[in-house]
């Protein structure tokens, strides 16, 4: 499993948000994107998800994104604030999402919910969730199908200490099964702890990579 970005460039309203990005991601590793607000971390994640059109090529296991496929074949993503149906419980929200591909059943959905520290049988609806619980459900949605690529933008936002520990466990579990994990986090210490490789971004450019 690999992702290869070659000369990936994106302009938005005249300004360059991704500037000639060349990166290689390998399965079984966690990559941390580091940079200040507006540096291009989220935009890079969107590009890998196929949500934005870019110049250059994004090669995922030999298939070119935007040419051979619209979106990566196996991806789970949490980008910015998660949003679900307010009047449904967490489990029902994940069930309706999973019903699109029908790849997984109730057992895997419950497992993902438990992995993030929520209770599958919790009868509270999403609108009654705290910020931390919403964040946890967003992570559960990203990992429930055990995708080959996991993108997590600020996964520990609004999480307490136990939540952050659970994220560590989740990343370890999915890394061990060979997934590519790309995450961005403002907590530099946490990011360095979680990542096998840190990629520094500044004004849309990769400035350094540290293993």
């Amino acid at each position, binding site marked *: 499993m690999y992702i290869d970005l070659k000369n990936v460039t994106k302009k938005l309203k005249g300004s360059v948000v991704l500037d000639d990005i060349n990166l290689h991601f390998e399965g079984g590793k966690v990559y941390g994107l580091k940079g200040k607000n507006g540096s291009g971390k989220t935009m890079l994640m969107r590009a890998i998800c196929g949500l934005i059109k870019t110049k250059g090529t994004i090669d995922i296991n030999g298939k070119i994104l935007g040419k051979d496929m619209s979106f990566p074949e196996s991806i789970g993503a949490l980008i910015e604030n998660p949003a679900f*149906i307010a*009047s449904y419980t967490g489990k029902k929200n994940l069930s309706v999402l999973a019903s699109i*591909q029908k790849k997984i059943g109730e057992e895997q959905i419950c497992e993902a919910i438990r992995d993030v520290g929520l209770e599958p049988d919790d009868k509270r609806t999403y609108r009654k969730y705290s910020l931390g619980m919403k964040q946890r459900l967003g992570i559960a949605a990203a990992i429930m199908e055990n995708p080959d690529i996991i993108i997590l933008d600020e996964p520990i936002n609004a999480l307490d200490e136990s939540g952050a520990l659970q994220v560590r466990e989740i990343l370890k579990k999915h890394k061990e099964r060979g997934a590519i994990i790309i995450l961005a986090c403002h907590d530099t210490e946490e990011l360095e702890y979680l990542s096998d490789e840190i990629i520094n971004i500044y004004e849309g450019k990769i400035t350094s990579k540290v293993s």
Partner: protein
Amino acid sequence: MGELSKLHVMFNQLKLHIREGIIVKWYLFLTVMLVSFSLSMVYIFIGNSAIERYSDTQQLTFLNVVAYIFRGMQEYNPAEGKEFIIEDNYLIWNVMLAIIVGMYPLRNLKKMGKISLLQVKNRLWWWLSICLWSVVTVFLYYVMVYIGAFVAVFLMTFIMENVNVFSSGFDIFLLKRVFGITYDTVPVIFWIKIFVLPICASLAISGMQVALSFLAGEAVGYISVIAVCIISAFSMKPIWIGNCMMAKRYIEINPNGIGMAIPIIICLAVWIVSVSAGYIYFNNKDIL
């Protein structure tokens, strides 16, 4: 993944749109039914008093109420020098549908739609699912309008002796009063049109609204619907599909009015162009 299984994924996504955009928003459809019920009740009281005063041979029926709901406006002729006023009975149905259709697609894409798009993994299927959602929404909207009217007539059947929900006919005396006609019958095609043309027009207008919302924003989608309604009120040419929602402008009522085939073809063309143009744009759209 084969094309057939992708189609299956599109229908699964459509089911999710129906949950998010229709079932969860049930109160909007209930409101439509209540508005239809209220307007029907108003007409039943007006019609009943007219029958009591001027006629004793006919009964107010469900068809009379439907004709009243979709009566629309008389042809506007600027040469007559009259003030151009758009009647609210015509605008209200378009505005309510525009609110329901406009509130969902783009907002969904900024929220849960982003996750579901990654699940569908195909922009075409996601786009078609949202277009089909608008079709389902339009049909359900009309079902609610008819239910509201039917319930009003049904209830009043047991209260007013001049109201009869069980009659499959209509009161020509009341029809003459609503449409200002002098002849004693209307052809069956008029009733077919009154049930078919408004739905066709709404499908086309909603398709256009969804495409324009993605293309230029939600506000532009709403403005486009209002613009089509205003121009249609001003001009009786079939190209302005809002005329389909005004029975007073059907050829059976107004000799210069619209027929059936050409308006349906125009509505179909508007829908196809909207869906196609919307997809071309959506396929290249950055989802931020």
